[in-house]
C-alpha cells in the first residue's frame, strides 16, 4: 500500500512539473 502511495506521490510531482511546463510553452507559442 505504502509503495503505491509513494508511486502516486512521485507521479503527482512529475505531472505538476509537466503541466506547468506545458502551460509555459503554450504561453511562448502564443507570443511567437
Amino acid at each position, binding site marked *: 500500500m505504502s509503495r503505491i502511495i509513494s508511486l502516486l506521490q512521485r507521479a503527482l510531482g512529475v505531472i505538476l512539473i509537466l503541466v*506547468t511546463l506545458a502551460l509555459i510553452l503554450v504561453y511562448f507559442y502564443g507570443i511567437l
Partner: protein
Amino acid sequence: MADKSARAIERALKWAALLTLIMGYAAGYASRGREVLPLLIEQLPEAASMDKISEHPLVLAFETPEKGSEARGYATISRAQGWGGPLSLALLVDGEGRIQRVLVLDHNETLPFFYRLEKKDFFRQFESRHVADPLWPGEDVDTVTQATVSSEAFTEAIRKGAHAVGREVFGLEIRERPPQWRIGWEEGFLALLFAAAYLSMRSGLRVLRYLVMAAAFFFLGLHLNASLSIAHYGGLLLGFVPRVITHPFWWILVCGALLTAFLLKRNLYCHALCPFGTLQELNYRISGSNLPVAKSLVRAVRALPYFLTWLALMCVFLTSNPTSGAYEPFPTLFSLEGMEIQWLILAAAILGSLFMKRFFCRFFCPVGIALGLVVRARCRLGKLGKEKPGCPE
C-alpha cells in the same frame, strides 16, 4: 568516462545557448525601429488628407470632411520610456487645442499593468484637456496604483505630444519642466529591505528573514506589484533603461539585486525579497504536505529553468520586447489582471507550491537563474584572483 562525455555535452549546450542568444539579439536588433506612422494612419481611416506640420516632433494636420465644422484636427506621435521599455503613442487634437483621443501605438509594458490602465480609464482622463495644460502626475493627472511607472511614462509621452502641438500649431509658449529627482519613502524602504535581507542572511536569524519576507510581500507584492522579472533583465540587455533621475526605484530594485549578487556573492532577492517566493513558502507550510521529489527527477529537470530562461531571452531579443519573455505569474497574481494562459500558469504554480517547497523557484523561475549566474560569475572571477572562498555551494 560517462561523466566526461556528459560534461562535454553540457559545455557544448552552454556554448550553443550563448551563440543562439547572440544571433537572436542580432536578428532582433536588425529588425528594430518599428514604424509607428502607418499604425496611426491605420487608426485614422476617416482622415481624407494628412499634411506634415513639423518633423521633429512629428505633428500632422488632417481633415475629416464628414465632421463638418470640426473637420480639421491634429495628430502627433511621441515616445517615452516605460517600465518595460520604450512606448509610442499618438494624440489627436481638435481645432481648439483640446485632446480628443490617445492612441497607444506600441508599448512594452507588462500586460497586466497595461490592462490595469485601460480598466481604470487612465487614458480617458486626457480627453478634452487643453494642450497647454501641465499634464503632470499628481498635479492634474491621476496615476494608477500598482502601475505607477507605466502611468507616469504614458503621461510623459502625452505631455510631450500635447505641448508639441501647442507650440507647433497654436504658437503657444510652453516651457517643459526639467526632470526632478523622485526619491520618496518607497525608494528608502526598498534600500532598507535589501539591507535587512543581507543581515538576515549573514546572521542566519530566521525571525529576521520572515520579517523581511512579510514586509517585502506587502510592499513589493501587494502595494507596488513590482516583482523582479526576466523582462527587467531582458530590457537591460536591450538597453531599454529608464532614467535614474525619474525612476530611481527601478534602478534600486533591478541593479540592487544584480549588484548585491555580484558584490556579496549571495542572491538576496530570492532569499527574502521575492513576494512570490514568500507566498510559495507560506503555501507549503500551510499545506503541511511533503511530496517526495525523487533525486532522479531533480537531476532530470535540473536544466529546465535554464532552458526556460534561454527561451524567454530569445523571445525578448527576437521581438525586441522585454515583456514578451515574462512568463512568470507574479504580475498576474498581484494585479489580478492577465491573459488566460497567465492565469493558468499562476494556478499551476500555486498548486505545485502546496506540494513542493518553492515549486516555481526550483523548476521554472528565470530570475533566480539570472541572479544565480551573476553569483557564479563573481565566484569564478574570485577564484581567478585567488580571493578567499565564500561562495555558496
